């Protein structure tokens, strides 16, 4: 298994009455009331430090994403962060997992160019995630008509892959981008960087990922229970299409913190976990998908199957959760190293995922505590995870030079 560190670059000092006083953490929060530009500069540097620390401590990858106009995690330019990290990790074999530049909020050719630059600076270590962008980002912050989100993403995806591969300049006559002569400089070092596509359970995305032989990622903060249906659906869809069950075809994002023991973990992290779900995730329910963001079949499925109502119930529920509830509901995986190890192995096997992303800095969690959790994880948990899938499968969705197979010892440890 490949495991990446994920930090979202949050506002770490929102006021105690934030969720009562303000409508939303996304789109609407007034910057000048809630933040100080110089302090925010420190947050960025803390975040970069934590990423670098995670890479040096032994994570297989560092994972970055793009979000706009919010205090949940404001990395509007993940490529800027990635560029700094690519340079800083040049002596390591860490993958730079971009999950990534959002296809609808950037000029597509710019993504092709910047990803190629990151691949160049890192010596061929980029994973080229291609998310459409959340509804808050794409539709509200960047004004993309919701119903065009998918179509724009698909077109940008095609243009980027073609721009990387083309031997000669070509004209591109898309609906949203028209170019007379595409001939980008530089090109990625990797022949084609691996592509990951985040999805939220739409059958059309499963099929799209399969058709293009990409990796499907379910990026969620709600844990295994809410993910099981989605990943089960993905694997069933792949079976129907005749694809193998290589677990590296799938990725999942899990909130995770590690302490010396279950008790000390709770003592040190409870308030940060609760801060995250109450304040950093304080988003009006309807913001998650403006009408049209989901295609009609997905909308219909969500409404008629009762999933939409269930999600709605869950979103309302977790606002009152305490740390223990998040743990018991499997929304977070937290505790001493043994607890975290067992639960992550269980999660990986049940969802059948080979690429695991762990959100280990979130909300108000300070740098020292984050680094402590990282160190405990990489020294006491990670060695047991590497061999979860044995050596039966090749991770085609990981940069080739970072792909070394797990040692026999690690395989034995994971299966012990």
């Amino acid at each position, binding site marked *: 298994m490949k495991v990446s560190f994920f930090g979202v670059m949050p506002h770490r000092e929102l006021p105690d009455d934030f969720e009562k006083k303000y409508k939303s953490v996304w*789109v609407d929060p007034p910057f000048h009331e809630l933040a100080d530009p110089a302090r925010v500069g420190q947050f960025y540097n803390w975040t970069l430090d934590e990423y670098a620390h995670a890479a040096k401590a032994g994570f297989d990858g560092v994972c970055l994403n793009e979000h706009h106009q919010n205090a949940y995690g404001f990395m509007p330019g993940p490529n800027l962060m990635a560029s700094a990290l690519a340079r800083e990790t040049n002596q390591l074999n860490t993958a730079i997992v971009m999950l990534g530049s959002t296809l609808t909020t950037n000029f597509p050719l710019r993504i092709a160019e910047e990803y190629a630059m990151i691949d160049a600076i890192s010596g061929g270590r980029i994973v080229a995630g291609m998310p459409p962008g959340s509804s808050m980002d794409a*539709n*509200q912050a960047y*004004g993309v*008509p*919701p*119903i*065009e989100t998918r*179509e724009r993403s698909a077109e940008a995806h095609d243009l980027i892959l073609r721009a990387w591969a083309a031997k000669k300049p070509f004209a591109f006559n898309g*609906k949203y981008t028209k170019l007379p002569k595409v001939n980008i400089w530089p090109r990625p070092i990797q022949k084609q960087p691996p592509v990951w596509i985040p999805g939220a359970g739409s059958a059309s995305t499963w099929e799209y990922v399969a058709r293009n032989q990409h990796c499907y990622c379910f990026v969620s903060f709600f844990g295994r229970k809410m993910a099981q249906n989605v990943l089960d659906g993905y694997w069933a869809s792949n079976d129907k299409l005749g694809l193998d069950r290589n677990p590296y075809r799938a990725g999942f994002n899990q909130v995770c913190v590690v302490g010396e023991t279950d008790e000390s973990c709770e003592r040190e992290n409870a308030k940060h976990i609760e801060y995250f779900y109450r304040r950093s995730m304080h988003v*009006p*329910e*309807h*913001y998650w998908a*403006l*009408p*049209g963001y989901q295609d*009609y079949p997905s*909308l*219909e499925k969500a*409404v*008629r199957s*009762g999933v*939409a*109502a269930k999600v*709605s119930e869950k979103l309302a529920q977790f606002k009152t959760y305490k740390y223990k509830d998040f743990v018991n509901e499997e929304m977070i995986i937290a505790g001493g190293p043994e607890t975290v190890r067992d639960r992550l192995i269980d999660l990986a096997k049940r969802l059948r995922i080979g690429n695991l992303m762990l959100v280990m800095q979130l909300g108000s969690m300070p740098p020292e505590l984050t680094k402590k959790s990282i160190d405990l994880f990489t020294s006491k948990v990670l060695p047991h995870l590497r061999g979860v899938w044995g050596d039966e499968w090749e991770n085609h969705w990981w940069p080739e030079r970072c792909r070394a197979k797990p040692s026999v010892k690690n395989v034995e440890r994971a299966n012990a």
Partner: protein
Amino acid sequence: MNAVTRHERTLSLWGKQIKPRVLFGGNGPPLIFLHGAGGLLWDDFLDALARKYTVYAPEFPGTSPGEYDAIKVLDDWHDLVVYYSELIDELGIKDATLVGHSFGGMIAAEIAAASPRSIAKLVLLSPLGLWRDDAPIPPWLSMNAAEMAEVFFYDQDVAKRFMLTPEAIATQPDLVLAATWALACAGKFTWPIPDRGLRDRLHRISAPTLLVWGDKDKLVSPVYAYGAIKTSSFRRSTQPISRPVLRTRGYRSFLRPATH
């Protein structure tokens, strides 16, 4: 008063790619009604019009049953305007009286500007389509049902009859789906700012035009009505334009069929 007998017919347009349902009924000269962003609802208002007119109410592309993908084939605003011209031709209506409400008003005004000779009379009920920085139109697509009710309705008791409750997702899934998708389809041409340049084409409208507005309208402020009348483009139009009629009084006399 009794409701008018309503019929429906499905057209085949845009190279058979769009098959909109058209509700129609009533007696008298033809009147085409273009509904707003929330979808078509044949209500008392259309019944009232149908007593003097044969009312044709086409559903916006993508909002007819089973036709959700039809919206995909209209790429842009130009496509949409040409599409409506095709629809009016297919209905076989010449010298149409065109009535458009809100988003439908934005389309109706555009049709009247694009083909002025095809429209005999134009009625715009608090239409979208223009933009003023001093009266920005709230981004309704990013609102929940309660927030929408607040801007769509003056009388919140009336709103309760029309707006879906959070429980509707379980009790009325069909209505939730239809309403959500209607907003999604209209959003293609109204999000993020419902302005596709109509201001520059208003001068081409030559049909006698009636503006009907609620003076408490919170979605499209009535300042748009006064503004539209003051613009030189409207004054240049070949027919005099009516004064804005606030609180929706007055449309009946204007719409009285001509006695020629």
